[in-house]
């Protein structure tokens, strides 16, 4: 084995306090970046979770809809127009919107209603941990996610409350259906949803369109736009993109997360650069000796980069372990942090890049060493 690794590791570990400071810098930076990007991924998934779970080839949405949670209304008669288009097999009405849930203390908390006919295909809850979809066909039935028990003031199936002064009873409980807005989702059937929203019996928010097996989706879409006015017809991908764009960039939430991640990278880079620079400065006479005895610049750069890579590997390992604990501890909360294999690999590459970039200041310092310096020491 070349002495490069030995020199690098011993230079690195010789001053333990400085080594610990380097590792803390890297860990702090990477954990911060992990949290920011993990939240971003989590938000990205949550923003489109309803679109992902809706059985639709196309969405008919009110003109100008910005995202899934944008509560505009369509006329239910549009369903008949949609069904008259050749190739449309189903046009499923869905009602959504914000309303007020009465908590046991007597106050109210905002909730987001999603109503769809429970006996047919539609936008229904999933991941049931108690009750089932059939129970939503009973009068006043609602399904909520257990994540929001505390917020809604309920503890079990059978608990009752009022939504916009109308009776509601929890008949099903789900796990992991969380809202980007942190406002709890409440699933119910179509008609109770219209009542809870006060939108009137002939108003809906969206139609989920399923086309016949042999129909051409683009053709159906064009026909729908011809037959309907003041609507847009979107593919699920288009609706996802629009929702992501609105929530993550239109509101500045995504930019804030990226800014936090960028700050983490900058802090980490500066800390690692400072410690590598200081380590190189301490070993300057050794690097001058290497140059004096004829070492190539590449050999010396390899030592410094090896130090940076060692720091990156050790720092990343610790940061990944801490991040995993954070990810696990937030898994059941309203704001889970997501860690994917791709994100982990990306963060490792980022750590390596950050540490190698940090080594540049040290390399510049070494480049300037006069080998004749060894005669004066």
């Amino acid at each position, binding site marked *: 084995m070349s*002495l490069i690794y030995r020199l690098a590791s*011993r230079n690195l570990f010789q001053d333990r306090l400085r080594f610990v400071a380097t590792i803390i810098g890297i860990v702090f930076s990477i954990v911060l970046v992990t949290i920011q990007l993990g939240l971003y991924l989590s938000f990205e998934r949550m923003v489109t979770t309803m679109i992902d779970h809706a059985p639709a080839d196309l969405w008919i949405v009110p003109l100008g809809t910005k995202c899934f949670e944008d509560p505009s209304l369509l006329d239910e008669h549009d369903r008949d127009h949609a069904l008259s288009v050749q190739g449309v097999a189903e046009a499923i009405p869905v009602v959504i919107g914000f309303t007020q849930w009465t908590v046991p203390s007597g106050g109210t908390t905002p909730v987001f209603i999603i109503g769809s006919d429970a006996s047919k295909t539609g936008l229904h809850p999933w991941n049931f941990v108690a009750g089932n979809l059939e129970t939503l066909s009973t009068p006043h039935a609602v399904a909520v996610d257990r994540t929001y028990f505390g917020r809604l003031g309920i503890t079990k199936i059978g608990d009752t409350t009022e939504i916009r002064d109308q009776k509601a009873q929890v008949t099903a409980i789900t796990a992991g259906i969380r809202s980007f807005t942190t406002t709890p989702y409440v699933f119910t059937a179509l008609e109770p949803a219209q009542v809870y929203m006060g939108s009137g019996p002939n108003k809906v928010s969206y139609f989920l369109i399923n086309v016949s097996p042999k129909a051409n989706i683009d053709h159906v879409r064009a026909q729908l736009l011809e037959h309907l006015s003041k609507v847009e017809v979107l593919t699920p991908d288009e609706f996802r993109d629009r929702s992501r764009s609105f929530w993550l960039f239109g509101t500045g939430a995504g930019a804030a997360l990226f800014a936090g991640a960028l700050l983490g990278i900058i802090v980490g880079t500066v800390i690692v650069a400072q410690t590598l620079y200081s380590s190189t400065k301490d070993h300057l006479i*050794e690097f001058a000796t290497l140059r004096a005895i004829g070492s190539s610049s590449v050999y010396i750069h390899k030592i410094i980069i090896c130090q940076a890579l060692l720091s990156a590997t050790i720092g990343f390992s610790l940061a990944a372990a801490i991040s995993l604990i954070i990810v696990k501890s937030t898994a059941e909360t309203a704001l889970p942090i997501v860690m994917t294999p791709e994100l982990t690999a990306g963060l490792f590459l980022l750590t390596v890049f950050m540490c190698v970039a940090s080594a540049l200041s040290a390399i510049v310092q070494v480049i300037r060493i006069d080998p004749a310096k060894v005669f004066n020491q």
Partner: protein
Amino acid sequence: MTCPVIEAIDIVKDLGKGAGQVQALKGISLSLTCGELILLMGPSGSGKTTLLSVLGCMLTPTSGTVRVLGQSTAGAGPGDLAKLRRDHIGFIFQSYHLFPTLSAVDNVRLALDIRGTAAEPALVRSKEVLSTVGLSHKINAFPHELSGGEQQRVAIARAIVGGASAILADEPTGALDSENGHAIMTKLAEIAKDHSRGVLVVTHDPRILPFANRIIRMEDGRSCLQAA
């Protein structure tokens, strides 16, 4: 065979810039041949270290010619000069300049590692050379575990392990007592006697005069006396 390993012809070296510029070497010429040990002596500020740096291809002369094994260094870049040092010149310093985090054998092996020699043969060769300087029993010792004389012997081993033709030593006995100084000079004289190398020693130490084949005295950037 008395081939010149390093030749310096009419070397001028200016140091500093502007009003602070001084001419450290003023047209000095010198030739180091195989099988000889030259002592370069002179008062502080006479230009000995500057001349050593020029001969060792660490500084380029302002004018004049330096040849290493007949190859002129004129126009050579830092990378070319580093290669010349790596391949043909071994250095020994007053403060040894060993790597404190490496063992004796690794300090010696370093001179081969920078040449790209594979680890195993480099290790074998380094042990052999450490043995020739009488340190076969201390190959795994770290510099702080060695005496000054032992550290300087490790430095000698590092200088010769790659087969350098010229050994340039800067005050090699400066930090040693007379017994260790004598031992080091004996070793350097042995090295010079194998007729494949020339040794040039910069020194203030009059005790080592008997080891010299030639003595060059410098004063004010010039050679003022050469004695055989």
